[in-house]
């Protein structure tokens, strides 16, 4: 009995022990779960918090054009100003009343500028009127009729530098977003947004019921916060555990951040479309993508469309499915009305409006100018790491002039077509590249790397290195003229056959283009008429090292072979390299690096770096005056004289043709007082063409120069240079010429025709009257 009791007691005690240990185990489990959950929540919380307060996105850098400066006297037609405004997304209205609007009358354009933070100062938003007289701005006034000396429009976005995952977005602050957009989003995506704590049980119930009724998923119960969590922190997988995590994170997010902060992030995060391989994220970028306008300027019907796209940017793509998109937009407007956000009248008015999206091609300004963008990217890489360019959201302002680029591309396409048909060249074989820069500042304003406008591929302007032919000759004449005691423009040189032994034992025998020798000729004629034999002789007399030095000082930076053929341009350069050399000539001997970029700002619009003007005197200005004279001879009477058939006589221009062996390359490099333009033409397979520098590239150069607002080149006589009448040949003074000489190298009396020619009218008398 006792034993039995003892057994029972033991048994009871065993049970009790077991219960206790089970309880303890349960407690341990509970504690473990609690601790684990706490740890998990803390980890999740830290993750949620850190990512939200840190750098939220990898932002691509965006590249902008030059701002269009407007002032009295500017050569700009009313149509071109209108074009610029439209490209900037300004809307044409009857009367401009808000930023981003303009109106046009016969003689004027009234526009309300948007204002912009430039490097030097802020240009405030204001209403202005530009009055035109012909193709010039004859007056610029503000809304009070006060004269404005100068103003500028904001730059145009022309492209971007994207990370490998091509998410494109521009950040916008919530206070810059139209209230109707935020209201539309809340109305259509999450009506309880301002009431729930991240998860809306009402929304889930509503969605559950709707889905049960329909028998399929027709409605999501996710709040805006949950959507943000899904897009921002998680992946696209739709599992129960992921939904649970999403809910937890949404709650945590709501604990730490305000509704405004969450909504602002959502507005910048959400996916709203696709442009090629570029994903459009956020409403600012979407607004530019669909309307070419900042989101701030959108009207109700536009914000409703964008809000509608959140549900499915591809499904409601307004270009591919306009009817679907219109229905969705109108549904958003109806919901907004039902939610009491807008009146019935407003909804009805907005519903009556068309989608108002831009054409898909015109909206892709980031794809329009790839040639120039390549140059920008290369110059940026000298300063910035590729990863920073792709993720730091830099704002890069350039010297790019879209108006000039457009004209250049148009002219290239037409001229190439014309040459192919005119010379019987196989269609599609002829290629071209060109670079246009501002003289003096060295700012590159346009680059074309292919015959096709907007071609995004091999960029011949930067990468096609071809023999430059006679365009190298100014370097030879510079090397000679830098020794005024030995050479003047009137120094005579034999243009007769010449043989030069090269270092490897070959004999180099250059010939003139027309296979004709011209005997003893003055230097300016050798340059102006591009005589090969005379130039080769001059170069050999001066010495290859001096010519090489001259080429380098002009701005060419690659190693140069010491070959005599260098004197006639056997050296290979890209158009931009040749442009760099010619810019030094055009800038009166001052080397300034050709610049595509003007300044860089951070994503927060803080000025980061300015690419300022640089200059370094590489040649004496007296020598440059002589070379400039020689290059004017090219265009007035030499190989480039056809230029003045289409350009005004009074415009001072200088330049040089270039043709390589078998006419494989046709070059022209020339400049006015304010623009330098270098043009190359040839075939990618290096095949022969029927074109010389004069019949090919020069024609395109003229086409381009006719379109630009050119000013005469600055050709003032510098101190230490004097002009004299001299005989151009050995036949006395019956064909005298007025030539510049560096002091100390003046012609002697036998050479000079001064007594009969240097006094204008009196000279005429002295020649014609027998006193």
């Amino acid at each position, binding site marked *: 009995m006792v034993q039995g009791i003892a057994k029972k007691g033991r048994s009871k005690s065993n049970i009790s022990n077991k219960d206790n240990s089970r309880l303890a185990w349960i407690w341990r489990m509970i504690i473990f779960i609690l601790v684990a959950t706490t740890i998990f929540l803390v980890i999740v919380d830290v993750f949620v918090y850190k990512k939200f307060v840190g750098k939220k996105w990898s932002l691509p850098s965006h590249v902008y054009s030059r701002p269009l*400066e407007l*002032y*009295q*006297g*500017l050569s700009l037609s009313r149509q071109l100003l209108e074009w610029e405004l439209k490209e900037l997304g300004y809307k044409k209205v009857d009367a401009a009343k808000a930023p981003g609007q303009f109106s046009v009358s016969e003689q004027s354009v009234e526009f309300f500028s948007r204002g912009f933070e430039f*490097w*030097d*100062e802020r240009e405030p938003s204001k209403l202005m009127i530009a009055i035109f007289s012909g193709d010039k701005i004859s007056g610029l006034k503000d809304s009070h009729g006060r004269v404005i*000396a*100068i103003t500028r429009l904001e730059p145009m976005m022309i492209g971007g530098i994207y990370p490998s995952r091509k998410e494109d977005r521009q950040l916008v602050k919530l206070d810059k977003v139209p209230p109707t957009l935020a209201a539309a989003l809340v109305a259509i995506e999450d009506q309880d947004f301002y009431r729930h704590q991240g998860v809306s049980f009402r929304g889930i119930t509503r969605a559950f019921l709707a889905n049960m009724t329909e028998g399929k998923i027709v409605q999501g119960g996710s709040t805006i916060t949950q959507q943000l969590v899904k897009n921002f922190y998680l992946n696209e997988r739709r599992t129960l555990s992921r939904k649970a995590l999403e809910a937890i994170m949404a709650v945590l997010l709501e604990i730490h951040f305000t509704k405004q902060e969450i909504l602002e992030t959502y507005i910048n995060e959400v996916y709203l479309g696709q442009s090629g391989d570029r994903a459009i994220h956020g409403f600012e970028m979407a607004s530019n993508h669909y309307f070419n306008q900042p989101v701030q300027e959108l009207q109700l019907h536009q914000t409703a469309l964008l809000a509608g796209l959140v549900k499915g940017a591809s499904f409601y793509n307004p270009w591919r499915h306009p009817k679907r998109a219109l229905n969705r937009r109108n549904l958003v407007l109806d919901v907004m009305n039902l939610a009491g956000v807008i009146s019935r009248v407003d909804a009805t008015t907005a519903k009556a409006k068309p989608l108002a999206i831009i054409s898909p091609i015109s909206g892709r300004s980031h794809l329009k100018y790839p040639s120039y963008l390549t140059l920008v990217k290369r110059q940026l890489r000298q300063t910035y790491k590729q990863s920073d360019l792709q993720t730091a959201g830099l704002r890069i302002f350039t010297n790019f002039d879209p108006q000039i680029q457009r004209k250049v591309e148009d002219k290239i396409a037409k001229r190439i077509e014309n040459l192919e048909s005119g010379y019987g060249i196989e269609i599609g074989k002829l290629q071209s590249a060109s670079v246009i820069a*501002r*003289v*003096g*500042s060295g*700012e590159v304003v346009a680059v074309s790397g292919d015959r096709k406008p907007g071609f995004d591929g091999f960029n011949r302007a930067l990468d096609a290195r071809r023999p430059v032919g006679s365009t190298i000759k100014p370097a030879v004449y510079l090397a000679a003229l830098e020794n005024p005691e030995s050479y003047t423009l009137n120094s005579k040189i034999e243009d007769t056959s010449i043989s030069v032994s090269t270092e490897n034992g070959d004999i180099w025998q250059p010939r003139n283009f027309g296979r004709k020798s011209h005997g003893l000729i003055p230097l300016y004629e050798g340059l102006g008429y591009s005589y090969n034999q005379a130039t080769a002789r001059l170069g050999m007399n001066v010495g290859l090292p001096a010519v090489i030095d001259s080429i380098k000082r002009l701005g060419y930076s690659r190693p140069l072979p010491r070959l005599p053929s260098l004197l006639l341009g056997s050296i290979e350069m890209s158009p931009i390299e040749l442009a760099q050399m010619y810019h030094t000539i055009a*800038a*009166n001997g*001052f080397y300034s690096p050709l610049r595509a970029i003007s300044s860089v700002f951070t994503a927060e619009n803080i000025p980061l770096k*300015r690419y*300022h*003007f*640089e*200059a*370094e*005197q590489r040649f004496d*200005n007296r020598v440059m*005056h002589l070379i400039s*004279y020689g290059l*004017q*001879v090219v265009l*007035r*009477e030499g190989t480039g004289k056809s230029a003045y058939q289409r350009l005004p*006589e*009074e*415009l*001072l221009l200088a330049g040089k043709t270039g043709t390589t062996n078998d006419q494989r390359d046709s070059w022209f490099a020339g400049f006015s*007082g304010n623009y330098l333009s270098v043009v190359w033409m040839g075939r990618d397979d290096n095949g022969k063409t029927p074109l010389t520098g004069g019949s090919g590239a020069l024609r395109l150069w003229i086409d381009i120069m006719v379109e630009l607002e050119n*000013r*005469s080149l*600055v*050709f*003032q*006589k*510098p101190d230490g240079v004097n*002009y004299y*009448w001299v005989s151009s040949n050995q036949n006395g003074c019956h*064909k*005298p*010429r*007025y030539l*510049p000489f560096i002091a100390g190298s003046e012609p002697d009396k036998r050479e000079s025709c001064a007594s009969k*020619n*240097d*006094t*204008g*009218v009196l*000279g*005429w008398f002295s020649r*014609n*009257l027998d006193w």
Partner: protein
Amino acid sequence: MKTGLQYAVIFTLSFFLAAACTPVTPSGGRLPSSGQAITPSSPITDSVSKDAVIKLLEDAWRYNRERQHDRSNAVAERAMRINHSEAEIYLVMASNYFSLGQFSLAEQVVSKGLPLASGNKPIKESLNQFLILVRAKIIQE
């Protein structure tokens, strides 16, 4: 043998004939009849977009005085885009580079401006004086 009257008639007719046949140079002067149209141009006095350039130069000098030299240069470069042959642009830029301690660049910029100042005596004098100052500073350095 010509009489004095005949000489006078020939002289007058010839004068007008010669004047009419003489090609006009870009600067408005006239070349002797046998010359090519390549002669040095007159000192720059053109007024293309003068108001805009004047306004920008005023702003550039103001920023210069306020010691905002980079900003001043940015404005001067705007003026350069409109008319790069305006010598005063180089004076203000050189002054900025000088203040920023970039003496070599200041010297180069003055040298670039000098040939453009032949039609503007005060600016030419200022550039010349500045050049002396800059060179002295470079030697000191």
